[in-house]
């Protein structure tokens, strides 16, 4: 059924299965037995069949016998689907072979009839087909049809008869053009859907890959950093051990980060007593305390507000303690009492 996933319109079964089918066909050994031959084969009594069906000769038996109806109850069906069978053949089933062959003789066309009248071909099924395997079953039918047409076409060709429709022969088809249009639309949409899915999948994979690469890079970077630090430590140790052998020179070898460190510390010293993010540069604490008269031109309140709420610079972190402020208990009591009062309320 689902051989037809290949997306090209109007050439469904083509490429994917063709090779396989071709291989199968190579294995084939087909026989076209003329009618008279197998007739002979049948007329010989087959003992095995007769054994299994002992009472198979009653012509006049009525059509339905209740026994067969009641039989299957005991046995449990596997599925309520279409192919439910009795486990064993019912004993009362009628099988009148002579009468069947008689009837066959009645209706049969003359044996020497030309093949052109019949157009029928017998194709060997190379092996038993599993019914429930849809793909295998359909493939078997397909190969049967394909083999049949090949044989037929060879026959036609030897007879010199036209069999392929010329490309300019237009006539009514079984399916209308509107219907074929519908089919085409469906095939195209299916193709598009498949393509889109493919694209999505690809994008997802790319993303995953990129993430991996990024992680790798990150790892490498951290490793490099670590290595560098390690090497510096080593170098320092060595220098210490060797007792500043290089003297000034070594000291001046001056790794940049050391300089940076120095400058950093100096800065810190400069800003000592001021919290890291105080935008007023320590003014707030001064002005907030006693020194209120330092205003030059500006109004006091403005100054105060500037110091309190900030004026330019980074906001926040203003109330964060520095090392000094933690040890300072100056305004502690006051604030405390105030707060307590509030709390009591």
């Amino acid at each position, binding site marked *: 059924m689902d051989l037809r996933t290949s997306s090209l319109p109007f050439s469904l079964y083509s490429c994917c299965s063709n090779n396989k089918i071709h291989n199968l066909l190579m294995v084939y050994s087909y026989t076209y*037995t003329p009618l008279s031959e197998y007739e002979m084969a049948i007329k010989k009594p087959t003992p095995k069949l007769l054994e299994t069906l002992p009472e198979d000769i009653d012509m006049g038996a009525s*059509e339905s016998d209740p026994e067969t109806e009641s039989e299957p109850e005991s046995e449990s069906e596997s599925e309520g689907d279409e192919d439910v069978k009795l486990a064993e053949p019912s004993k009362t089933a009628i*099988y009148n072979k002579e009468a069947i062959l008689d009837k066959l003789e009645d209706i049969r066309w003359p044996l020497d009839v030309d093949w052109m009248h019949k157009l029928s071909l*017998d194709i*060997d099924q190379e092996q038993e087909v599993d019914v429930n395997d849809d793909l295998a079953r359909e493939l078997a039918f397909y190969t049967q049809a394909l*083999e049949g047409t090949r044989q037929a076409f060879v026959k036609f060709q030897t007879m010199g008869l036209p069999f*392929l429709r010329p490309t300019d022969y237009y006539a009514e088809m*079984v399916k209308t053009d509107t219907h074929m249009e519908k089919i085409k639309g469906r095939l195209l949409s299916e193709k598009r859907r498949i393509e889109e899915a493919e694209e999505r999948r690809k994008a997802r994979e790319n993303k995953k890959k990129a993430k991996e690469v990024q992680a790798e890079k990150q790892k490498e970077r951290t490793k490099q950093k670590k290595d560098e630090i390690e090497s510096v430590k080593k170098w320092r140790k060595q220098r210490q051990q060797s007792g500043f052998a290089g003297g000034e020179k070594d000291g001046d070898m001056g790794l940049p980060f050391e300089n940076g460190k120095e400058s950093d510390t100096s800065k810190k010293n400069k800003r000592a007593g001021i919290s890291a993010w105080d935008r007023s540069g320590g003014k707030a604490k001064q002005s907030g305390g006693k020194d209120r008269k330092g205003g030059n031109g500006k109004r006091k309140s403005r100054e105060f507000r500037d110091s309190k709420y900030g004026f330019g610079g980074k906001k926040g972190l203003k109330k964060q303690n520095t090392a000094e402020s933690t040890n300072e208990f100056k305004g502690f009591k006051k604030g405390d009492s105030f707060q307590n009062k509030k709390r009591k309320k």
Partner: protein
Amino acid sequence: MGKKRKHSEAELPAAKKEETAPERPKRTLLGWKDKPENEQELTGFRNREKVLVTCSRRINYRYRHLMLNLVSVLPHCKKDNKVESKATKGATLNELVELKSCSSCLFFECRKHKDLYLWMSKCPNGPSVKFLVNAVHTMEELKLTGNHLKGSRPLLTFSSNFDKDPHWILLKEMITQIFGTPKEHRKSKPYHDHVFVFSIVDDHIWFRNYQISCPHTGADKIDRGGLEKMTLIEVGPRFCLNPIKIFGGSFGGPTLYENPFYVSPNQIRSLEKRQKAGKYAKKVKAKTRRKAHEMTNQLETDEFADMWKE
């Protein structure tokens, strides 16, 4: 002057006509007399099969479409009105077939709006077969993408296990007669672009219809490579026939064969129902049994039960 010339011109073609006239084949009311007769004498056989296709009343749309598909695929068939499906349908159908001067009949009988039975019979006194039809797919399905000429003669391919048993041979003969379009049928077209598959798998006859798509360059000769490149595209319909019985007469008569494995869909459904049905009864039963059990073996009173209560 003018007159004279005209006369002479008229004379010339007349003379030509006299030369060619005797070669013209004789015509009768029914067609050309000479050539076809010779051919018929050679083979002594002419297929005059006509198939009557009808269905029962209250048929499902899906099955009706299947029937219509078959009608479109078989150019030698006649479609007729629906027939009431009752006990005496055999007689009426026989009459109908005779009335329409057909030689065989396909009758689609739908029961309970879900089960489709197909009667295939040779009239007036040939055998008839009753099939259960399942796995039906009609031509309208969009998954079946092929298309072929309406009325081109199909190739019939049979799997080799049709020659195994007498009843299969009989069925094969009937199928070739009913499904094969007669040669030189007036509605048939001269090319072959589709192929029927009849295959016995699991004691069912599976039917498929494929379009033959062959890359060719207009000429009728295809080489070995052309045969290799040939692909088939399914046209539909699909169905699967499960033979139930073969009767000696048309729509009746003595039973010649009966499928020993056949279970009717009614039985299957009833069985399913019965399996489902026991649920509530079982529950009730279990409850009462439990109660009885509890009554018979009562628990001894626990002496420490109210130790911590006080």
